[in-house]
């Protein structure tokens, strides 16, 4: 990974009735920073302001020590050394895939070494489409081209505005894996807009929460998920993301290590990294007072109950502490909690059916 760079500033931009006014911000750009917020909260507007795509922007912006904006004066987009992937790919319709890819490369100053064209094209999986007209590409293919086009320039910062939202679930799953691998391989910091919590949990190192044109807070993913009222929780309810170390597969399962415990993940490991991120839905976790036998559930983890949080309509969110200290949420009904007499401090077993690795 490259040395982390800092993004700091305070941007204003008025668009008709909408007013972006971030307030001062200052956060590192290492890894993936997700901009998260409801529709209309100003995510796209902020990202465009950061990229210098809106001339009406006002305020201050500094990235990695370079000044991009002071008041009304600003560095041109073309000189900011950023890549940008738009929601709808924004491929040039009058060019082939190859011409789209080479568009930026031809304009790169001599001093910058571009990415290796062939290896990137292979990684992104568009070699056989190079001489096609872009009009006939599928949504997923279009995004691959857009991502490759941006990455080829070896930008200092990659901005992505909902790059996956137009794709169906199969294409989305493929693209997420591709994105992760690319970002890990090339170590380019990313500013990523999404309003899909699953994407945040899978990709984010850091979340910038936006609301009504303001930056509400910048939190690490862990901080963001430890809040029981996290904006990241959707109709699936609370989620825990657990950091673990990958071990070698056994019985067709992939064990990962959490301190002295082992968690068994189903399916092959998609990533070859040793540090992985496991996403567990609170409603997929059950509790047992003693370690039950003759059960198809593989994962029985010894945990301590930290607190019981009423959730309305007779449901409780139970915050558990794993033996290595990490946080795990479990959702139970009030009825079960009463029946099992759950209370803080009690040591119980968390039952998790084998789960899929997320990162």
């Amino acid at each position, binding site marked *: 990974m490259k040395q982390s760079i800092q993004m700091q500033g305070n941007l204003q931009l008025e668009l008709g009735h909408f007013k972006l006014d971030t307030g001062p911000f200052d956060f590192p750009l290492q890894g993936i920073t997700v901009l998260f917020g409801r529709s209309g909260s100003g995510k796209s507007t902020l990202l465009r302001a950061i990229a210098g795509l809106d001339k009406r922007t006002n305020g201050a912006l500094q990235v990695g020590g370079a000044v991009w904006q002071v008041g009304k004066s600003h560095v*041109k987009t073309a000189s900011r050394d950023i890549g940008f992937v738009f929601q709808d790919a*924004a491929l*040039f*319709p009058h060019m082939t895939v190859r011409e789209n890819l080479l*568009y*930026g490369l031809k*304009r790169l100053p001599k001093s910058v070494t571009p990415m290796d064209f062939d290896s990137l094209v292979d990684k992104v999986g568009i070699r056989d489409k190079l001489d096609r007209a872009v009009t006939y590409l599928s949504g997923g293919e279009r995004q691959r081209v857009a991502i490759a086009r941006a990455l080829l320039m070896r930008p200092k910062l990659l*901005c992505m505005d909902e790059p996956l939202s137009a794709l169906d679930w199969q294409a989305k799953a493929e693209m997420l894996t591709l994105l992760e691998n690319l970002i890990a391989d090339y170590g380019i910091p990313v500013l990523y807009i999404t309003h899909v919590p699953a994407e945040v949990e899978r990709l984010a190192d850091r979340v910038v929460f936006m609301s009504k044109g303001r930056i509400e807070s910048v939190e690490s993913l862990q901080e963001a998920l430890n809040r029981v009222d996290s904006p990241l929780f959707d109709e699936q309810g609370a989620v825990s993301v657990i950091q673990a170390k990958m071990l070698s597969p056994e019985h067709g399962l992939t064990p990962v290590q959490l301190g002295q415990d082992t968690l068994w993940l189903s399916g092959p490991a998609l990533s070859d990294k040793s540090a992985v991120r496991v996403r567990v839905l609170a409603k997929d976790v059950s509790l047992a007072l003693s370690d039950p036998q003759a059960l198809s559930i593989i994962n029985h983890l010894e945990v301590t109950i930290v607190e019981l949080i009423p959730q309305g309509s007779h449901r409780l969110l139970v915050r558990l502490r794993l033996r290595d200290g990490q946080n795990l949420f479990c959702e139970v009904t009030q009825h079960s909690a009463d029946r099992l007499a759950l209370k803080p401090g009690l040591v119980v077993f968390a039952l998790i059916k084998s789960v899929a690795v997320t990162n």
Partner: protein
Amino acid sequence: MLELFGTEVNLAPIWLTLEVATMTTLILLVVGTPLAWWMAQMRSSNKVLLEALVALPLVLPPTVLGFYLLIVFNPTGPVTEFLRWFGFEGQLTFSKTGLVIGSVFYSLPFAVQPLMHAFEAIPHRLLDAAATLRASFLDRFRTIVLPLSRRGILIAATLTFAHTVGEFGVVLMVGGNIPGETRMVSIDIFDHVESMEYTQAHLLSGMMLVFSLAVLMLVYGMNRRFGVKVG
């Protein structure tokens, strides 16, 4: 001279017409493009004024427009004086230059209107994307705006070309109908009609029609075949 159906046809006016029409078209594309782009980007109410001003040459009868051009372009007038400053030595009237300038004025709306509409239809995201790929403004204009405005540019070019070919009043007024220099086909046909040489008039008109039909079909056909859908 060409002998056709037993009638002699002087080809010089045809060549001159094609030359003037081509030059007018080129100049209007060059001048009209930035003007149309600027108008396409405008949001203020000035746009309304400008749109109306551009359409104005249509309202005056061409002969009258020509008459005013005669007054404005006269060799002792301010416009010519101004040009002399820049080393211009000739005279605007009675020359090809004058014909072209007159036609440029007269055909302005036909070039600017379609260009403006084409420019207005270009998705801004594509320009943003090009900017993030380090393309400067002129670079973006050349590599994104122009290729994607092909249909509008073609319409502007054909309308201008056709209109200049058929132009009569202005070129008659400003040109001076000098054979081989400023006698265009339209004037030539008119002269034939005036002097009751109807056969030559029919022949020339027929040639212009067939030729223009061919050119227009070629252009519209190309446009359709290579048309790029922007979505």
